């Protein structure tokens, strides 16, 4: 499985309150909810994101609340993969559980810039910045997490 797209870049400690503010958590409709993705940190994100694009951030991405709405709106907005130095643990679980591919790779997170064209190979963990020509190796997931991702999340995994 591969992903390819343009990069949206953010910094350290992007919390779930800026990914999807709590004032919208009464909304159940995924499309309506995702129209507010990243609103409090990047008002232009929802207008500029295209299917397949990649999000890159630094340390502790997704810290804060347990709201699964956070990875959900990122996935729903069309993002194909999130790369960061580290992820907050509940966000990490939630992303795997809903089938949003995420990769921990500090070097890629440091050197990839906003707007770069990036390709990710999930089978090998190789991240290639096509714009700069640099490539990086992310730690592959343990086999059973890979199975959950390949089943499009925990529900698919349990059912299979």
């Amino acid at each position, binding site marked *: 499985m591969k992903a390819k797209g343009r990069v949206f870049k953010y910094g350290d*400690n992007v*919390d779930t*309150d*800026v990914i999807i*503010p*709590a*004032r919208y*958590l*009464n*909304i*159940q409709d995924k499309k309506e909810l995702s129209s507010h993705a990243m609103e*409090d*940190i990047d008002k232009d994100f929802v207008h500029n994101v295209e299917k397949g694009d990649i999000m890159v951030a630094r*340390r*502790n991405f997704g*810290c*804060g*609340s*347990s*709201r*699964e*709405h956070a*990875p*959900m709106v990122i996935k729903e907005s069309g993002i194909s993969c999130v790369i960061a130095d*580290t992820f*907050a*643990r*509940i966000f990490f*679980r*939630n992303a795997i*559980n*809903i089938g949003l591919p995420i990769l921990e790779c500090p070097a890629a997170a440091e050197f990839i810039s906003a707007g770069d064209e990036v390709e990710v190979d999930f089978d090998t963990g190789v991240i290639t910045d096509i714009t700069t020509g640099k490539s990086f190796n992310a730690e592959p997931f*343990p086999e*059973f997490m890979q199975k959950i991702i390949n089943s499009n*999340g*925990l*529900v698919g995994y*349990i*059912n299979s």
Partner: protein
Amino acid sequence: MGMTMTQKILAAHAGLDSVKAGQLIEAELDLVLGNDITTPVAIDVMKGIKKDTVFDREKIALVMDHFIPNKDIKSAENCKCCREFALKHEITNYFDVGKMGIEHALLPESGLTVAGDCIIGADSHTCTYGALGAFSTGVGSTDMAAGMATGKTWFKVPSAIRFNLTGKPSKWVSGKDVILHIIGMIGVDGALYRSMEFTGDGVGNLSIDDRFTIANMAIEAGGKNGIFPVDDIAIEYMKSHGNRPYKVYEADSDAVYDEEYTIDLSELKPVVAFPHLPENTKTVDEIKERIKVDQAVIGSCTNGRISDLRIAAEVIRGKRIADNVRCIVIPATQKIYLTALEEGLIKDFIEAGAIVSTPTCGPCLGGYMGILAKGERCISTTNRNFVGRMGDTESEVYLASPAVAAASAVAGFITAPEV
């Protein structure tokens, strides 16, 4: 190699003699928790799982607390969805208006969380129950759904950081100051993926409410859980709040910790976390400028317990909330509310010019009951001060103890009570 307290609880719930850090295990759950924001998503996920039953109707707790009493039509629809699910599956521990309270104060108070338990909750502050010696951790709605359906979940066994607490905190220094001091020291990802295990003689000098506050904010350091040894204070609390049997686990003497810190509680001072991260801490006496506040919030799963209200009332009693400051007091449960009423604390708050709300998470996450306008500033006993957490993205939240929030509400600027 010895095991930490957390590892021992996880091993027991995975049916294993021992586990080690990094190991993937499947654990049996004693309780699965959800609230009015996360449960509707979990119910939707359950529709996708080919199993329309719950593993044990007595081991699921659904607490309507974030946006209720319903703040709008959408919130009402969400609660209705939870209510119908609870009725359909005959969930014993469904808490709605009249019975509800903020989940992490309500469940221990109802005797539903005891030492030795393995608990997941679709709320990040589920780590609170570590105060009683339980392993408890926050998860998302899909994990909650799978937990409700199967009674099991997977964990990666965490390593741990040990915090050796010594000494006795001085007057006006509480559990909130201890945990803010620790987060300031190790950072908001200082305990990422790991347990925070609190030990030492100083634990005996912390009330159970102080311990709830400390365990509650383990997640604010990125921790998987925060956990305390089970002593007479914890046992007394469990015995007076329910009759579920508890089990005491102790860390092995040769348990391995990634890091160890010793903190002398007697040296701590009141701490404030500045916007927009809980790690941006200063002691109150380090603050040289006069930081005016528009609002003070005293409540939440972190600091809405009876001892928090007693401290706030002690500071506020007989004084007036400063002009142009809105002081909002939110008892965390009905029982706490009633106790505060019987003790005259509610009268103290109202006579001083504060308002008292029914239990709700309300303003903590910017839901309702005290949203901030652009440029406004709040001193709050809640747990997060992220951008836009309590309202406009240009508003500010300063985190502090009930004593500091109350003193600041009276002064009109951030300060601590005089010693």
